[in-house]
């Protein structure tokens, strides 16, 4: 009998990173299926391009990051050493990023733009920071933001509706076109929920997204704290705006904002990315508050109609601050609750005065 040296504990739980990654892929199925149903080959091609580029480039750069042993003589041996720690997670993780990234793209965008965004996301945002688990920005959101900043011109007339005729997304319509409540005539709430609107491939069907979100939360692969915190903050602040600007139709305004744009998709699949989130309970509540209020601020006062990706990236920058060793703790302390409420009130005041509120 050969005895092995180990240190306690000697038993491990039956969970794995692999399982968590595959859970996210499963949760994405309804969204992907719906986008293929809506956009056909346009969607398939863009998803495939994104998948191939992200998985392939991650594998390539992964190999470049590893050291070879001196004893490895032939190319084959060197390759074997380099990829000895390459696991299924190096495939599933970029696959998740790739699908989410593709879902953030409009269906008629040139494939070139998808390729550029995917390459930027995986090379600069992920692998340059050290690969799996080391990136500080959400990979898909950063890729999306890069494309819309660098290739703005390509986004003209790429959003198509059910009739395959180019149109404005509900949020662009709200921002620059008709304004509220006229948009309700073109985009009834029921169409927003079922996905009968122009928009990016993933964001349009609220039902498909919610199925995925429920699966993620039941499997505990996503932390409900971030989801709840982001969603509640967003809803409350939007309600405040609705009550101030459209007192008669505030409820429709709130629903319109929730179901249009990438909010639901972002809440379900992007803010729940654990790699770029803080690691403590209070930290995650705070992180959700930041994302939620930043989305409202960008949507209401910013130049863009859509704010999920930018808000998320901005909140990512605060994660090292939230997680700073001196004050990060997993206990929900009174001072955290006070700080959370205070921050929410500040955000509410900013929004309130921003939309023209006055002190009585």
């Amino acid at each position, binding site marked *: 009998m050969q005895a092995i040296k180990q240190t306690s504990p000697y038993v491990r739980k039956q969970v794995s*990173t692999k399982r968590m990654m595959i859970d996210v892929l499963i949760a994405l199925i309804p969204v992907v299926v719906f986008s293929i149903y809506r956009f056909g080959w346009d969607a398939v091609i863009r998803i495939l391009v994104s998948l191939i580029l992200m998985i392939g480039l991650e594998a390539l750069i992964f190999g470049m990051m590893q050291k070879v042993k001196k004893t490895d003589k032939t190319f084959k041996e060197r390759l074997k050493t380099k990829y000895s720690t390459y696991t299924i997670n190096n495939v599933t993780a970029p696959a998740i990023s790739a699908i989410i990234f593709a879902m953030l793209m409009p269906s008629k965008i040139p494939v070139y733009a998808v390729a550029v965004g995917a390459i930027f996301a995986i090379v600069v945002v992920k692998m340059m920071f050290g690969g*799996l688990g080391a990136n500080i920005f959400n990979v898909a959101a950063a890729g999306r933001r890069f494309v819309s900043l660098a290739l703005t011109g390509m986004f003209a007339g790429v959003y198509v509706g059910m009739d395959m005729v180019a149109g404005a997304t509900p949020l662009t319509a709200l921002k620059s076109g008709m304004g509220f409540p006229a948009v309700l005539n073109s985009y009834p709430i029921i169409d927003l929920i079922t996905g009968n609107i122009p928009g990016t491939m993933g964001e349009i069907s609220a039902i498909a997204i919610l199925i995925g979100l429920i699966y993620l939360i039941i499997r505990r692969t996503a932390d409900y704290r971030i989801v709840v915190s982001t969603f509640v903050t967003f809803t409350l602040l939007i309600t405040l705006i609705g009550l101030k600007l459209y007192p008669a139709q505030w409820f429709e305004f709130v629903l319109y904002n929730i179901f249009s744009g990438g909010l639901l998709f972002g809440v379900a699949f992007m803010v729940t990315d654990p790699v770029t989130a803080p690691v403590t309970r209070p930290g995650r509540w705070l992180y959700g508050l930041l994302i939620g209020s930043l989305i409202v601020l960008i949507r209401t006062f910013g130049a863009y109609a859509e704010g999920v990706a930018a808000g998320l990236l901005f909140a990512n920058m605060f994660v090292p601050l939230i997680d700073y060793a001196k004050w990060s703790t997993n*206990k929900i302390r009174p001072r955290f609750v006070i700080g959370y409420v205070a921050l929410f009130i500040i955000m509410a005041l900013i929004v309130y005065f921003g939309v023209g509120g006055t002190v009585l």
Partner: protein
Amino acid sequence: MIAKTKYIPDGKKELKELPILHYLDADFLFYPVTSARCPEGETCVRGGQFVKIGEVLGTRKGAFFEQPMHSTVSGEVKGYEKSVDQSGNVVDCLIVKNDKKYNLHPSIIDRTNEEIDALTKEDFVEIVKEAGLVGLGGSAFPSYIKLQTKDKINVVIANGVECEPYLIADYSLMMNQPQEVIQGLIYAMKASGAPKGVIAIKKKYTEIRERLNFSLKQFTGHNIEVITVGNHYPQGWELDMINRAVGVKIPQGELLSKYGVLNFNVSTLQSIYNAVKKRLPVLERLFTISGNGVHNSSFRARIGTQIQELIELAGGYKDIEIPKVLILGGPMMGTNVLRDDIVMTHTSTSLIVLNEEILIEEPCIHCAACVYSCPVDIQPTQIMSAYKVKDKDALKMLEVNKCIECGLCSFVCPSKIHLTEYMRSGKRLVR
């Protein structure tokens, strides 16, 4: 899984059903001269001398206490040999050849109830000290030091939680000898002047609760209560258990007695009973051999028995070709040993033999399952990052010293990162 993990599969059901073999046929018994707490020791017997059960063989010397060692069989002193003790170290052992007559030393006579009633606090401390009693839950902390506290004690707690998987020593003790545990608790209450006694057990052990409550009917006039606490791990950690059982919050690093609480393992209380009533030191313990790499069996064996003999008696190892991990104690916090010529000591309760499983560590994805599960509310993943860059200030700010090494962070990690080992290294770095 981004969630707090509280329950771990405990595998106790199968072990509870095993018959308990009383093993008295050991030819040679080994008595370690030193132990983890006592780096020095001396013997006071010569080779060829005949000793009887309960006779003092020598003394182990610790930093601030001395601890006598007793013979658990009658027979001839043979000499010295090296063997592995509970802490996994190779130590010198005194060997006694068993004559299998089990003659008691003339000093071992029962005390009458009148004699016990007349005992003062100092007498109790002296008896416990003479018997060499230590914390049998695994700490091996000398019990008399706990008892001789000057603080006012409000409650004595018997810890019968035994939250680690695969351990059933306390369970079967409470099942089979509840009176001895209760009697020991009464003596401990008498010695410390505490008006109240509490036996803390797991909530799911309804059969134990009924058994203890039934036995308590014989002991009227004592304020003893059976309190059920949670089933989760690490409920047996004394601060968590005390908070749950009697509602006293004690900060880490403080003496329990300052808060009016004394905590003993149920096995320790039984040994107090034996020492006070029968003048016996710890002679026997229940020892379980479990795990998927060995034929499982339960034994009642004398302190000093070679565990190798018990393994052979149980049927030996399974799947010899697979490398094994040998663990003394529980699978979460136990000690790893590399040899199986282990000597049973006071704190031995179990040997677990697991077939080796090769785990591949993946990068941390910050899921924070370890942070959510940590019973002392520290952040293992951040401590790991701080340790990797040898950042002592960050380690201090993250309070790595609070870690109780319960092993939950490693247990829950989906990336199979050995976080507990990082916690230990971090503690060493800031020391």
